C-alpha cells in the first residue's frame, strides 16, 4: 500500500471529498489535488526525471482521475487508486518515448533536474562533507535509475520509493508475482553494477 498523506484531524476525509467530486464538486477535487500533488509529482518525476514533463504528466493523471471518478467505488484508498492512474499515465508516456527512441538514456535529462521551486521535501541537514558525498551519491543513483528500462525502473520505484508489497506491484503493473520478483532482481543487479564503484570508493 502506498504511503498516503492522511488528512489532519479536522480535515475532510478523502472518501467524503471523493463523494463530493462524484456529485460534480470541483472544489472538493481541488482539495484532493493539494493533498496529493506532491506525491504524484514525485512519482512521475522519478520515472521520467524531467521537471516540466513530470509537471504535465501529473496534471494529466489528475484529469484522468477526475474523469474516472464516477467509476471509483471507494473499494480502495483514494491514493492507491490515484496512484495506479498516475503510474499508468507515466508508464504509457515512457513506453511511447521508448517506441520513438527518444530520451530514455539521455543523460542530459538528469543534468538540470533540480530547478527553482522543485526541491525535495526538506530533511535534517547533514555536515557539509557528508552532504557533498550524499549529493554525489544521489546524482549517481538518479543517473543509474534513468538508465534502467521502463519495466525495471517501474518495479524498483514501486518497491523502494512507494513501498508497495509484491502483490500490490503485481496488481498495479499488472503482471505475475514471478515477473515482479524477476524484474526487481535484475533491476537491482543492474543498479548494483552501475553503482559498484561508488560503493567501492566508500562514498
Amino acid at each position, binding site marked *: 500500500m502506498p504511503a498516503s498523506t492522511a488528512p489532519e484531524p479536522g480535515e475532510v476525509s478523502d472518501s467524503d471529498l471523493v463523494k463530493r467530486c462524484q456529485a460534480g464538486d470541483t472544489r472538493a*477535487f481541488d482539495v484532493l489535488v493539494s493533498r496529493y500533488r506532491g506525491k504524484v509529482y514525485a512519482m512521475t518525476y522519478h520515472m521520467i526525471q524531467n521537471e516540466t514533463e513530470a509537471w504535465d504528466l501529473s496534471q494529466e493523471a489528475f484529469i484522468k482521475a477526475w474523469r474516472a471518478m464516477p467509476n471509483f467505488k471507494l473499494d480502495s484508498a483514494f491514493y492507491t487508486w490515484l496512484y495506479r492512474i498516475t503510474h499508468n499515465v507515466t508508464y504509457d508516456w515512457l513506453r511511447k518515448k521508448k517506441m520513438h527512441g527518444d530520451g530514455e538514456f539521455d543523460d542530459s535529462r538528469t543534468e538540470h533536474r533540480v530547478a527553482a521551486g522543485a526541491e525535495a521535501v526538506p530533511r535534517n541537514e547533514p555536515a557539509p562533507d557528508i552532504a557533498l558525498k550524499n549529493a554525489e551519491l544521489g546524482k549517481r543513483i*538518479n543517473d543509474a535509475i534513468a538508465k534502467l528500462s521502463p519495466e525495471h525502473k517501474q518495479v524498483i520505484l514501486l518497491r*523502494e520509493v*512507494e513501498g508497495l*508489497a509484491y502483490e500490490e506491484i503485481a496488481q498495479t503493473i499488472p503482471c505475475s508475482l514471478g515477473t515482479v520478483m524477476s524484474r526487481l532482481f535484475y533491476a537491482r543487479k543492474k*543498479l548494483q553494477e552501475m553503482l559498484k564503484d561508488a*560503493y567501492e570508493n566508500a562514498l
Partner: protein
Amino acid sequence: MKTPSEDHDLIRWLDGEMTDAERARFSTRLAADPDLKAEVEMMQRMSSDLRAHLPAEMTVPYGDFFNSQIQVRLAQEEPLIPEARASWLDWLRLPTLITATAAVAIAGFMIMQKGPAAGDSVVLSIYVPNASVHARTFHSDEAQATVLMLDGVEAIPADRKIVGYYIERTETDQEVATTTLYGKSGEVVLVVSKDVRNQPRLLSATPRG
C-alpha cells in the same frame, strides 16, 4: 551459480516477503555463505540509499498554478454526471439566476391588463423557487411601472443580463394546459404550463434581441 528461485529468495528476504520459516532457512544459508552475505549487504545498503535519495513526496513547482490549471481544464470537461435534460426547474435552482427566474415567473403569471385608458398592470401571483428569497412588487401609477424587489438573493455578476418581458395579452389553452403570453406586436414571448407540482414550467421562449 544461483538458480532463479535463489535469486527470488534473496530479494524476498530483503523486502520482507518471506514467511518466518523461510526467513529462518535463508538466514542459516546466509551465515554459511560469505559471498551471499556480501551481496545481501550490498543490496541492503543500496536499497537504503535509494529510499534516502528518492523522496516519496516533492514540492510541486508553482503549486498554486498547478491547481488552477486543473480547475481550468475541469471547467472545459463534460459534467461528471450527465444531466438527462435539464428541466427548466433545474435551471431555476441556480442561485445566481434567481432574479431572472423570479422575473420570468412573474411574467408567466402577470397579466398586463392594459385597459384602453388606464394601462396599469396587476400581479396575480409570484413564484420564487428558493424559499430563502422573498419577492415583492411595487406598482407606481405615476411612473406606469411595476418594480420587482427581491430580498435574500446572492450577488449577481455584473455581466449577467437580467431581462424583462412586456406582455400584452395571454391566452390559456385548457386542453393542453398551456398559457401563451404575447408581446406588444402580437408576437409569442413565452409559452408556460404547470408541472405535476403545480409549479411553472417554461415550454418555449422567444430570444430577445
